[in-house]
């Protein structure tokens, strides 16, 4: 074989090997990210809600909402933001939720990291307390709606959304309709 034939063969092999390395990396991430985008939404939820007893109209009440975030995929996920709308159900109002939503809305809460977002490692999960504060002095209507119990229990309704990024990529997606509804009620926390 001539010298340029050998050189051409070497170039072909080098390109094929380096291309294969790049390709395996990209395909691995593409498949893992696709898996994450399909399954992540089914593994996000609200695990617990804590509402302290409201004792005065000008009280500052901090409501805790604990989110469960599971990542069954093989690639890490950055939590870009979580936001939620907090409602306190009025059981005497028998209208469907969309009709009475405005009248039972309390406040919004959320997690908006400007830097260093929370990261859910591959095949792991984390829980996050995301608090919301209602200041009775400034939000008299909100504290009034919050302080609504039936048989000593609160009946909160939470509608949350989550924005995430597949780690080390520019793929950003969101999960909507993370809902918390309780039939048994939530007793006031200590």
């Amino acid at each position, binding site marked *: 074989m*001539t010298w*340029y*034939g050998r*050189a*051409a*063969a070497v*170039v*072909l*092999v080098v*390109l*094929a090997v*380096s*291309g*294969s*390395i*790049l*390709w395996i*990396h*990209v*395909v691995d*991430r*593409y*498949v893992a*990210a*696709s*898996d994450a*985008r*399909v399954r992540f939404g089914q593994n996000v939820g609200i695990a617990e809600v804590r509402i302290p007893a409201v004792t005065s109209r000008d009280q500052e009440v901090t409501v805790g909402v604990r989110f469960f975030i599971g990542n069954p995929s093989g690639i890490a996920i950055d939590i870009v933001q979580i936001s939620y709308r907090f409602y306190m159900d009025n059981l005497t109002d028998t209208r469907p939720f969309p009709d009475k939503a405005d009248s039972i809305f309390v406040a919004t809460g959320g997690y908006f990291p400007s830097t260093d977002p929370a990261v859910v490692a591959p095949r792991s999960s984390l829980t996050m307390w995301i608090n919301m504060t209602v200041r009775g002095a400034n939000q008299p209507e909100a504290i009034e709606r919050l302080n609504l119990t039936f048989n000593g229990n609160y009946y909160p309704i939470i509608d949350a959304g989550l924005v995430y990024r*597949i780690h*080390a*990529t*520019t*793929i950003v*997606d969101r999960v909507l309709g993370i809902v918390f509804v309780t039939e048994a009620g939530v007793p006031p926390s200590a």
Partner: protein
Amino acid sequence: MRESLQKSLVDTLFVVAAAIAMGTLVAAANFVDYGPLIVLDVGTVIIGVSLVTGLALGLRTTDEDPQILILRAFASGLGAIAIVMTTVFAPILAGVIPSLDVLGSSGSTRLAFLFTSLFIVPIHVVGAVIGYALSDFLAPAQFGGGHDLTEP
């Protein structure tokens, strides 16, 4: 007989290598959103890699008819397109998603991948023809080439 079989196998191996080189690099360049090891420009890769691999394939072909080389270049170009399309549908082939629609990517995006990768074939063929001409030029004059080794 054994030599010709061996030569055919080696030639096939290099056609496959050219297809792998073009297909994998073009696919990696198309999926820049997924954090590749090196960010590559799609246009540059399609033109550059197709031309270089074509040249290499042509340079290796010294004692055969040019139409054989053209057929090989076509075969490796089509192989590269097959690799690009396999990459696009990789999550379905891996069984992690039922359809690409769940990822929100439109059909036009996938058609764009296919359309851009189609450019591999003509550029690769042109590269192969240039490589063939170069190999003919570089070959010693006593073997029918244009490179006269007897010149001082």
